[in-house]
């Protein structure tokens, strides 16, 4: 069975908090802590939603997003972007690269949950033949 959510976040504390909150909301999760690991995990776990931090070591969130959108196998993946720095510009770049939703750090846990829920529900409806 496919994982619901893949989290790509390098800060251990934030990753721990995110995992706890999303698990408690009833979804299954997997996580990676750097940019290079994201693609492999996406292909392997086939998550329904990717929660992607922009400031990732080794390969930035932007690069990862770009790669996801350019690969036909992953281009339909719903992506929630976490951004912390230079919000306006990061948000614009992420939008252009095809991010589906945004949450800005520091966030309220409820915001992340509702954003993920929205992404999990809508594509399901749309994706149904």
């Amino acid at each position, binding site marked *: 069975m496919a994982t619901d959510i893949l989290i790509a976040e*390098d*800060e*251990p*504390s*934030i990753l*721990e*908090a*995110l995992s*706890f*909150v999303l698990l*408690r909301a009833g979804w299954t999760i997997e996580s990676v*802590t*750097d940019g290079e690991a994201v693609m492999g995990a996406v292909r392997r776990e086939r998550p329904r939603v990717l929660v992607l931090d922009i*400031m990732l*070591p*080794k390969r930035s969130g932007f690069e990862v997003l770009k790669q996801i959108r350019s690969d036909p196998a992953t281009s339909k993946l719903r992506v929630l972007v976490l951004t*912390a*720095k*230079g919000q306006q510009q990061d948000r614009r770049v992420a939008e252009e690269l095809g991010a589906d939703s945004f949450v800005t*750090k*520091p*966030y*309220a*846990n*409820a915001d992340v949950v509702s954003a993920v829920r929205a992404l999990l529900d809508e594509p399901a409806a749309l994706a149904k033949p």
Partner: protein
Amino acid sequence: MTLTVDLVIATAVAYVGLLFLVAYLGDRYSGSTEGGLLRSPFVYTLSISVYCTSWTFYGAVGSAARNGLEFVTIYLGPTIVFVGWWFILRRLVRISHDQRITSIADLLSSRFGKSSRLGVLVTLLAVIAIAPYIALQLKAVTSSIEAVAGSSEFGRGALEGWDEVGLALGVAAAMAIFTILFGTRNVDAKEQHHGVVAAIALEAIVKLTALVAVGVFVLYAAGGLDALFTRAADAGLRIHATETFGDRWVASMVLAAAAIICLPRQFQVTVVENSDESHLRTASWAFPAYMLAMSLFIVPIALHGLTTMKPGSNPDMFTLTLPLAAGQDGLALFAFIGGFSSATSMIILESIALSIMVSNHIVVPIMLRLSSDDRGSDGLGVRRLILNARRLSIVLILLLGFGYFYLTRASDALAPIGLISFTGVAQFLPAILAALFWRDASTRAAIAAISVGFLIWLWSSFLPSFASSSPVVAGIMAQGPFGIEWLRPQALFGLERLEPLAHAVFWSLLLNTTVLIVGSLVSTQSALEHIQAALFLNVFRPVAGDPSPLRGSATVDDLFLVARRVLGHERAMRLFAEEAKAAGMASTSLEPTPAFIHRLERELAGSIGTASAHVMLSKVVSGDAVSLEEVMQMADETQQVIEHSQALERTSAQLRATAEKLEFANRQLREVDLQKDEFLSQVSHEVRTPMTAIRAFSEILLNEGDLDGESGRKFVATIHKESLRLTSLLDEILDLSALERGERVWESRPIDAEASLDQALRVCDALARQNGTQIRPHPRVAAATVLADPDRLGQVFINLISNAIKHNSAASPVVTVRSRISGERYVVEVADNGAGVPEQERSRIFDKFYRGSLGEATSKAGAGLGLPISREIVTRLNGSLEFVPGTSEGACFRVTLAVHKPAAEAV
């Protein structure tokens, strides 16, 4: 009719009486309608014909007989000047009218800053240069009387016992009296002499008619032109010899052209006596036509004389002796009167012109200097003095002429004497042309140029004319003065190829012009010179207003006194009444405006010359200095335009420079701004990360009521850890910011750096054990005194050692801490055996918030401010912190500090 000497003299006296009558009537009717004829361009043209003197009347025939067609040049030069009247004469006349110029000396003085010195110089030189010319006239009149006497069977009549010299003296005395009676009856405004001009015009008609009559007689006697030329050819006479057209030909033509401008009497009749500029237009063709008529019969008379008169007879007198020989006494008498006319008209006008110059430029200035406090004297004083000065100068001038005649009486020919005078006055030509056309010509240069030209003239032209009467002069001519050959008067500087006249003309005019040009280029003009130059050059340009260089204020009484002294009571009253009427107030309450002072100056200049009028008015007008603004105002427009555009260029260059500076400053500001944005963005990121964790866990703790105790404690611990991280981040930011602002947050003192290093190693001991890192603290020095704050230095060491521990990924991590003293330097190195710093990151490891790829990956790093802070501290301690490349494995950082010397401190 029998021609005797007595009859000749009686006729001459009667002729003079007729001239007096004409002059008297001329003066009387000059202002009325009946005098209209006097102001016609033809009377003007005839008066210009005073150029044709007895030299022309008698001498041209002699010249033709001796030198062929050379005499033509004497007419060609003036013809060129008059045909080209537009270029020079028109300017001269306009300027002289505008500036009330009274003579050639006045013209030059006025143009060159109203210079009195130049006026005196030109006057003196003109008097000297004209002496030979006057002598020529005396000689001609004397010779003509002698010729009559020689041919008369009644002997010398009243002249019995008079030799040639005595006769000449008598003629000179008579001429002096004649001229004084004619020309010095009044001091006239603008120095115009309508009566004299009328008489001169009559004389011009008489001399032309006489010459033509003799010419017609000659043709008749010779049986026509063909017969005359045939006979001359048979006798081997070749008047149009080929060698005529040589350097001498060119020289005499240049001289004649110069003379028609520079001769004082020509300037008088052509420029000063001109009452209407348009008359020049008529004269431009009528005067050459007159000269053509005068020259028409010269060659026939000369040929006829040479073929019919006995060998040895003086060809200069052919005009008179031919009719005499043929027994045509009536015609001979007419010819004599013609020659007499030529001589008298020249002498009268020349001495009037010269006497004006002498009185205006020498006598009046001296008088002004001597009598500065005689304002109370009667108004006629100055005028009487001027008239007496003129009378005296006329006598002096004729005496000089007679003296020259006496010294050179051995020479027969008339023409060379005239050319000597021509060469002398030609020295004024460069200065006159410069006055008309060259703005930069300066007074000092003009004075020097005229002096140099005149000295050359004296030496190479004037002096040689005494050779026949003085053995000393003849010796100088042959060997040079004191045997200096290159100073021989007619072979100056070794130039022997030129014919004497051409030689004198060449050297005098060449050096004259050279001195003028070079002198003007190296000297600067005074304000007044500048103004006068502009007035002369811009004479045909419309000027706004009529600015007077004489500025300031004067009481109307002072001005009136001055005016009365010069102009006489009546004219002064009239002038002031006119001004009062124009100003619309009583003459007693008249306020002298600058324009009125200027007008008064011009009126006075008309009587006593520009320089003298200027000096005289300057005495009563206070503050006559020309202001800078006025000079600027009058400065040439072109000059102003040039200056203006240069100023604009300078301004725009300054603007460009300013714009560049601004742009540079702006760029720097933008850079600083960008750096600030970057820094804020980094700080915001660094703050957000712990904040995010703290918020997330706080919300979990708040919202999740069913948390187990262990999870809760763990979450609280995370919150605590993240808040500590936040605190240290803020501390570091503040610390770095204070360091960068240069705030001195510590006091340096001599400490033992090794003690600080030991302290740092102890602090890091726990961290090392936690990471399983072995610390090797050797080799070390025992102690090292440096100037520093122990806490700050310790902070640097702790940062370096903890970095080495945290970023060491080796399986068995080792950190080596070494210290040594090298010369006057204390060096500490902290090295590890980890992965080292990748090449491409080495330039950035000291940047703020830069943590390197490894640091980011391991998540062990702080905010990335440790190294920048450490480097800042070490720099403040006058040391250096650097990454040491080249070690085989791991990273190595080196701190270098100066060893403190207690001795240095004691000194």
